[in-house]
């Protein structure tokens, strides 16, 4: 599953030095086009972003006034920022656990030689290939307050009192968005868990069966521990995605009603591009960067440990 990593330090012997030099020159030529593009369009803007976050620039003035850590101080006292970050935390927790649980359930059910495995796999993965905007529009229609499927179903089983404008009600808007995200994502978790299940030692499971472990015990004590590395991978992956979530929220609620579904990415977009507070927006984007860096660092460390 994971390709071996190249040794980072080559061993050079004098006899090969001419060849080594030729390789070194060639190496630069191979790497240079990508490196230049990367430096100019990623690293340079990143450094500039840090600089912007220390100014109060509005995008129009020719001069960017340096305010030091002013934006960051403002950030700490910004209740909306904390609220948005809190929504991200909820998003990450529920948006990570639920698709993994569903993926595990489906994975285990299909693992033990169920027929039609390939067909199920193809079907579960369909929402994963759809663009966020498409997923958002589909679920928007399902949540439609008057004609939406969800309310129609509730009314048809006599639960009229539960029918509501799911996205317009501050109490249900965030859960409704989360369901949307999970709908578009559980197939992804399922496929990865299936891949992990290929490596689970079936003899161990059989031995446990002979020893009298029931299905639930086999699942918790034998299968899940052997899947731990796949599960940490998905968790880390989903964690990063959950802190950067933008499209679904932007298309479905724009962060509303009020601020009920504002997340850090939509809030950053709002301050930077709709309110033209570039400096403050840049500071907000640094919050996302720091959170992502921490999550990615953990991800990479876990990955290294497994190699």
């Amino acid at each position, binding site marked *: 599953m994971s390709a071996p990593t190249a040794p980072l330090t080559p061993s050079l012997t004098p006899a090969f030095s001419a060849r080594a030099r030729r390789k070194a020159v060639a190496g630069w030529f191979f790497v240079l086009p990508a490196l230049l593009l990367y430096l100019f369009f990623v690293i340079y803007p990143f450094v500039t972003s840090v600089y912007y976050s220390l100014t109060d620039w509005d995008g129009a003035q020719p001069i960017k006034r340096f305010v030091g850590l002013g934006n960051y101080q403002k950030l700490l006292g910004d209740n909306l920022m904390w609220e948005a970050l809190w929504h991200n935390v909820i998003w990450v927790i529920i948006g990570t656990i639920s698709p993994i649980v569903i993926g595990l359930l489906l994975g285990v059910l299909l693992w033990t030689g169920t027929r039609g495995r390939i067909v199920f796999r193809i079907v579960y993965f369909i929402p994963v290939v759809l663009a966020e905007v498409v997923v958002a529009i589909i679920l928007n229609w399902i949540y439609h307050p008057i004609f939406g499927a969800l309310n129609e179903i509730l009314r048809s089983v006599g639960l009229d009192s539960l029918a509501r404008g799911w996205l317009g009600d501050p109490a249900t808007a965030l859960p409704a968005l989360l369901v949307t995200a999970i709908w578009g994502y559980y197939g992804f978790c399922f496929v990865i868990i299936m891949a992990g299940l290929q490596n689970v030692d079936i003899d161990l499971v059989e031995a446990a069966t002979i020893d009298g472990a029931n299905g639930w015990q086999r699942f918790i004590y034998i299968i899940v521990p052997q899947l731990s590395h796949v599960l940490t991978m998905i968790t880390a992956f989903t964690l990063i995605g959950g802190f950067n979530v933008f499209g679904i929220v932007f298309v479905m609620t724009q962060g509303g009603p009020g601020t009920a579904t504002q997340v850090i990415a939509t809030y950053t977009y709002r301050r930077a591009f709709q309110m033209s507070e570039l400096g403050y927006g840049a500071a907000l984007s640094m919050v996302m960067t720091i959170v*992502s860096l921490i999550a990615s660092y953990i991800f990479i460390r876990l990955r290294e440990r497994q190699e």
Partner: protein
Amino acid sequence: MNVSNAGSLPGGQEVRAERDLYHSGLKVLGVIVRYGVLIFFALVCLVPLFWVVSTSLKTTREISFSPFGLPAEYRWSTYVQAWTVGRFGKYFMNSVIVTLPIVSFTLALCSLAGYGLARLHFRGVNFIFYLFLIGLMVPFQSVMIPLFYLLKEIGFLGTYWAMIVPSIALGLPFGIFFMRAFFAGLPQELGDAAEIDGCSEWGVFWRVMAPLAGPALSTLTVLSFMGAWNSFLLPLIYMQKENLRPLVLGLMFFRDAYTQNIPLTMAGATIVMAPIIVVYLLFQRSFIQGLTAGALK
């Protein structure tokens, strides 16, 4: 997962027969529950899609009195209307125009750099590798604001380049990381033999290594294609001109303009999702492999 320990009862023919019956009953129940759950989640994936298509073929009135029924009359004219009013033809071409160069340059630049970092050792190779690794960790949001002004300054804003070039650059870290791992996994002797036969470094790469990279390249193709095709925030900021909008962005503005006309909106959504679902079904193996490579490789 079907439950199997019913507890052991003292011997006796009848008891055993009874127990067998009990067991086979449980087994059947297990199978029913298992398929029930599997089919339920399959329907959760499929029913909304069918519902979108069926809604798109109804009249606005029909939606209110028969929300779940099939359309009484298939109104394909809604699609003609969506296609012309929504300018999806134009947006589709825009998506193709930006996606093709993004995918091809991503493949070319990532294989070159990945190969260079994996097999041609030079001073600073570690540093460059870690520099790209940082890019794997920073979200798009952390560069989006200055990138806007950079693109404006160099005259890319208002052209297709505003989406093409940043998408390639932002895709480099993972692509290089991925290709480097692939090339590092090829046996060392392969290049040595070709070198002895008089191949240049370029020759080794182009004639020996690159032809072996097919599977890795197809994975990267899917990943970069889907990234570009479904990209949303980047064109939202950098492709604001109406005639530059890619498909996904066009759909969003279309939805905003025709919120009240539900069949028309659903026709738009169908136009956007249908091609990608068809392509996915044709190449499902590579799609699944490509899209999960980030978490698996």
